[in-house]
């Protein structure tokens, strides 16, 4: 394996891992606050992609009709911001309707609720959009740069940088803002902290909103990198990101990011070396072995789900 070939695969893996990392964050944060995995998260990612698709299509149509003429880069920024906003509303709605009524109930009910909400979201999108795959409109012309034999596209660079920027922003928010402090306190003990005057309803809603917004950002970038989208795209992706969240250590934000990229690297490099059919088999066997030796994940601590950085 020569160096250029190796670097090319590193570039490929960075792009692929970015999606896992962004989605795994949503799983991890919700777990740290509410001690439950939001199994609808993969489908929230899917809905975020479709909202991005609808917004982009609408903006392009408006521009084409000459009503509001916007340059493509502005459409992209507006789409990302608005889609994050709408999807976080959806996330809060899911929390309000799906999880809050069951908060006192058995843990299993909440997990099943997540699965059901996922199916409801999928079938709703299927009903509105049909089973046909749709093409995510390309806002940025793909340009390939050849850096010492390694092919890098502007989209790849954008995806990796935006993902890392969002992760750093989240880190700053959790670590240095008042709300972030409330989240960390809530993750520490969600029975006692409400006694200090912090509403668990507000914090839980906020956590869902942030997780969903990140999923929407991931969805739009996914649409740009893999522009053919369909209503069932969130299932497998959501499951793999869930694996990343567990691998990173439940409740650990840095763990989720690092594990997301790690899964991306493992998948790409297994597919490079072995017949690609064995990719998931080998990749997830490796992760299984890691978990056998580190049952709490890379950054998890026993008996605790504190939000750590």
């Amino acid at each position, binding site marked *: 394996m020569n160096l250029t070939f190796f670097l090319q695969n590193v570039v490929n893996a960075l792009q692929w891992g970015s999606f896992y990392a962004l989605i795994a964050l949503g799983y991890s944060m919700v777990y740290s606050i509410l001690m439950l995995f939001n199994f609808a998260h993969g489908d929230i990612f899917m809905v975020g992609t479709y909202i991005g698709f609808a917004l982009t299509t609408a903006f392009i149509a408006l521009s084409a009709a000459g009503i509001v003429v916007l340059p493509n880069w502005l459409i992209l920024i507006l789409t990302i911001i608005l889609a994050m906003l709408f999807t976080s509303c959806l996330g809060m709605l899911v929390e309000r309707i799906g999880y809050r009524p069951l908060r006192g109930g058995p843990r299993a009910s909440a997990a099943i609720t997540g699965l059901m909400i996922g199916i409801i979201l999928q079938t709703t999108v299927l009903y509105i959009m049909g*089973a046909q795959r749709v093409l995510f409109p390309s806002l940025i012309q*793909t340009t390939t740069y*050849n850096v010492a034999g390694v*092919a890098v596209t502007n989209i790849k660079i954008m995806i990796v940088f935006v993902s890392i920027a969002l992760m750093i922003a989240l880190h700053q928010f959790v670590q240095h803002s008042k709300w972030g402090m409330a989240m960390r306190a809530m993750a520490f003990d969600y029975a006692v902290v409400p006694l200090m005057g912090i509403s668990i309803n507000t914090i839980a809603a906020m956590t869902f909103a942030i997780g969903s917004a990140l999923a929407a950002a991931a969805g739009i970038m996914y649409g740009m990198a*893999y522009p053919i989208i369909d209503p069932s795209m969130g299932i497998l992706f959501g499951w793999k990101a869930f694996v990343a969240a567990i691998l990173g250590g439940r409740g650990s934000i840095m763990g989720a990011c690092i594990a997301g990229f790690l899964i991306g690297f493992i998948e*790409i490099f297994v597919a490079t070396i072995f017949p*690609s*059919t064995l990719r*998931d088999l080998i990749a997830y066997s490796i992760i299984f072995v890691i978990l056998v030796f580190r049952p709490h994940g890379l950054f998890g601590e026993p008996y605790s789900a504190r939000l750590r950085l």
Partner: protein
Amino acid sequence: MRTRLMFGLFLCGVLGLLLTLSACGDKDSEEAPRQTMQDVIRIGFPIPLTGDIPDVGESTRNAAEMIRKQVNDAGGLEVGGAIYQLQFIYDDNESKAESAVSATTKLITVDEVLAIIGPQASKQAVPAGGVADNYKTPMISPWSTNPNTTLNRPYVFRGCFLDPFQGPVAANFVTEEFGATKAAVLYDIASDYPKGLAEYFRKAFEDIHGPGSVVAFETFTTRDVDFSAQLTNILRANPDVLFVPQYYNEVPLIVRQANSLGWNKPFMGSDSWGSGDLMGLCGDACQGHFFSTHYAAAGATGATKDFIDGYQAAYGKTPDDVAALTWDSVNIMLQAIRDTGGLSGNLSRDRDAVKNALGAIKDFDGITGKMTFTPDGDPIKCAVVVQIDQEGQFSFFKSVCP
């Protein structure tokens, strides 16, 4: 209390949604009320209306509905002096092998159809063919090119040529047209059609250029979207052409990702490229590439042109090869039913008669070429290589006969 109320409201909402959905789903079967056994011929279509390839199911239904309307509007189908109305039953196989088996079983045993048209993709047609043969029901899969669909199944026929024929067509074509001496293949190993075709291509290409001339033979699994690792391997092997026997939902992703990794040589595809909304999903990226297929819409004449015009008038789009092959398959099935000289009303005897009549048809003049079934149930017909031109049309490039 509030919690319960919320939950109740939520349940009501879900139920309402479900009712709306099921009401929509039932529309097709409600359209034609059940009639008595004497004056109705039922044909079942286990086709992919949802799942990975819904466009294929839609094309099948569109073409079949055209025939049904034509025949029923003209009074019905005359078989041995009696007039029959056609009733077509469409059942969703969800693009899954398991669902194809259950849909086919249901059509044969519950709906008691005389014959089956479909499923389309080999992944569903191979297992469904086993069901039809067990129940001794004649079946034509219009689009399945995998040999196992009809192999040792006297009741199963197909409307198209086979992969063992399409593989050499593609291998010869890239050798002659591009002067290729090294080829690469990227295919879905979890699906019967691409897997079979990839292996036939490799065998044919290595027969021409010697062992090892297929320099990269890379695989992926259904529903994968990232092919960068496989494509990086392929680029490193430096082939002259990349053969991609995939469906319209994967081809655009593969072509775009290959281009963004620096691939600028030709792609060669198979008949699966021609179905569905390839150009809508692929855009300019697919222009200039070639694939082998069953018929070319651009530049058609005669009966083929009449079919294309009728289809365009009814559905507002150009029929793909699935629609054309379904058209031929349904017509050849109706021909066979007419050739039986009369139906007895005894379902198993009639099914046998239709099967025998299908095997006896000589030089059926279809819109995708003349067809005669071999004893295995496979037609002898020609393949067409088309190029995707600047307007995104599939234009005729070359005809290759066996």
